């Protein structure tokens, strides 16, 4: 049963991934078509580049804020919307909308909304007496702006997965809890969240991977790494190294570093969410 998928996966993703690992240790001149092993030179080169090191930090900060916030909002919304009520359909559609629209156009709209003087964001901050920053033009705020957009965009898919997971929840457990007099909030923490563990593990891992590879919204909102390279992230640096500087070997080395980060984070997530096999 596994065979067709494994063949497909090895062929179309496995080989490219393996190639990445091999090419990371080479000087691969993509234009001249020459490949030469150069040991750890690529890694030495990339880690001596301040921009790359800064991009690692930005990626970590970006993920640290984007993933948990979006997940928390998503799980609450999923529970609230897991009901039979006529309006739920429209609420869900609204929450899911940001995910389905092509990022480029909607990121351009956000660019407008972050306009310092007359943008929606600062206008609304003005109502409560806050003098908003210049957002995308301010090195101290640009990353925050991008994080806000990414949370907004990421809620929908997470809610959908939680919603799907909630469908499999057995009612009998809740009934027992109600008889025991557990409040709704107690039920949420004592029953719902533990039962959502496999889904949570999934959402967490996928969100972290996604977040580490976020590209489109950053590329549109803060082109070329943002003001003073304040929003440059690992994926953008990889893109820049590979396709603006044609240095494929170094780009592969950067990808391997990204991979290592994700691997560690995945193992931590597995710890955090527990061995999901034991749930039932």
């Amino acid at each position, binding site marked *: 049963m596994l065979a067709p998928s494994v063949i497909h996966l090895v062929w179309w993703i496995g080989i490219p991934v393996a190639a990445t690992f091999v090419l990371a240790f080479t000087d691969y001149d993509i234009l001249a078509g020459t490949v030469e092993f150069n040991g750890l030179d690529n890694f030495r080169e990339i880690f001596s580049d301040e921009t790359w090191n800064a991009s690692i930090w930005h990626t970590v900060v970006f993920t640290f804020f984007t993933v948990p916030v979006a997940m928390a909002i998503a799980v609450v919304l999923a529970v609230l919307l897991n009901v039979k009520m006529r309006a739920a359909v429209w609420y869900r559609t609204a929450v899911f909308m940001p995910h389905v629209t092509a*990022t480029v156009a909607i990121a351009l709209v956000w660019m407008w909304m972050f306009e310092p003087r007359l943008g929606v964001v600062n206008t609304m901050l003005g109502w409560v007496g806050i003098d908003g920053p210049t957002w995308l033009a301010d090195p101290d705020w640009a990353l925050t702006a991008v994080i806000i957009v990414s949370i907004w965009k990421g809620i929908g898919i997470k809610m959908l997965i939680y919603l799907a997971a909630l469908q499999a929840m057995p009612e009998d457990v809740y009934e027992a809890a109600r008889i025991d007099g557990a409040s709704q909030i107690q039920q949420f923490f004592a029953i719902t969240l533990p039962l959502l563990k496999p889904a949570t593990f999934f959402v967490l891992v996928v969100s972290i991977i996604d977040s580490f590879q976020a590209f489109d919204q950053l590329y549109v909102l803060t082109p070329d790494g943002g003001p003073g390279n304040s929003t440059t992230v690992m994926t953008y640096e990889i893109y820049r190294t590979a396709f603006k500087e044609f240095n494929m070997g170094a780009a592969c080395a950067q990808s391997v570093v990204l991979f290592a980060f994700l691997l560690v984070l995945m193992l931590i997530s597995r710890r955090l969410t527990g061995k999901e096999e034991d749930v039932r």
Partner: protein
Amino acid sequence: MSAEKLLQGDTDRGTRPANRIPLARLLRRTALHLVLATVSLAMVLPFLWMIITSLKTDPDLASYPPNLLPQVWDWDNYSEALEYAPFGTYFKNSLLISFGHTAFNLVLASTAGYALARVPFRGRTLVFMVVLATMMIPTYTKIVPQYLIAKGIPFFGGNDYLGQGGHGWLDSWWGLIVPGALTPFAIFLFRQFYLSLPRELEEAARIDGMGEFGIYARVMTPLVKPAIATVGLLTFESSWNNFLWPLIITSDTNLRVIQVGLSTFQQADQNAWAYLMAGTTLATIPMVVLFLFTQRYFVQGFARSGIK
């Protein structure tokens, strides 16, 4: 507004007598709707702005301070935007590719996810970890090898048995559909859902003498409908919004997709704002329709009362 009230708003239907505390209930309901409506508004605000922008004229767009609503509702933007590129062909191509990806992904990923979740075999955890690992290398590093593989498919596009001499799957439906037909994401999602089904079901089926495939197809899969809906929806959507791969492996305008069409509205020096917004609005509609259609797989709530 406390979170407790919010959470109480949803699941109590039918479990308590409906008229026990009608006023408190009504208040809770109202509060819940108020919160959800606010959140929804925040989520769709950029779209409203997008639609409004798609109806503005160029001078209107440039006016300062900006106007909230269009001075003139310029519906012609939509028909003009469609003339920017052969959108009829692009739309058809995108539809075909999205359907192809969705169908393949549902079959392949659900079987793989099932095997990883429920069929014990040596190295299962390793295979699963490798599946996860394949998601961890960014597109931009994978794309060149993937291009080379597509080009080197033996016996296609004038290639010999070594995959040399021709152009393989470049500029072909094969190349557009097959490489993206299975996502590790979908395998992972299916695995998580199959994992959460109770063991008793499987054991009962085995006692009835059912084979592994029968258990997969007739017992387990019907129980993960929400997962099927989720994977179907997300595959279709990501395939619909894919841009880079279709652009890279085709050179023929007749094989290009809707996102390539939308990119013609963004030029190096200046975007065609109204057209871009009109085009994106049109491209979003099928996705919203699809979502509304898929909805019914998520509305069962507690009605199905779990798995006995």
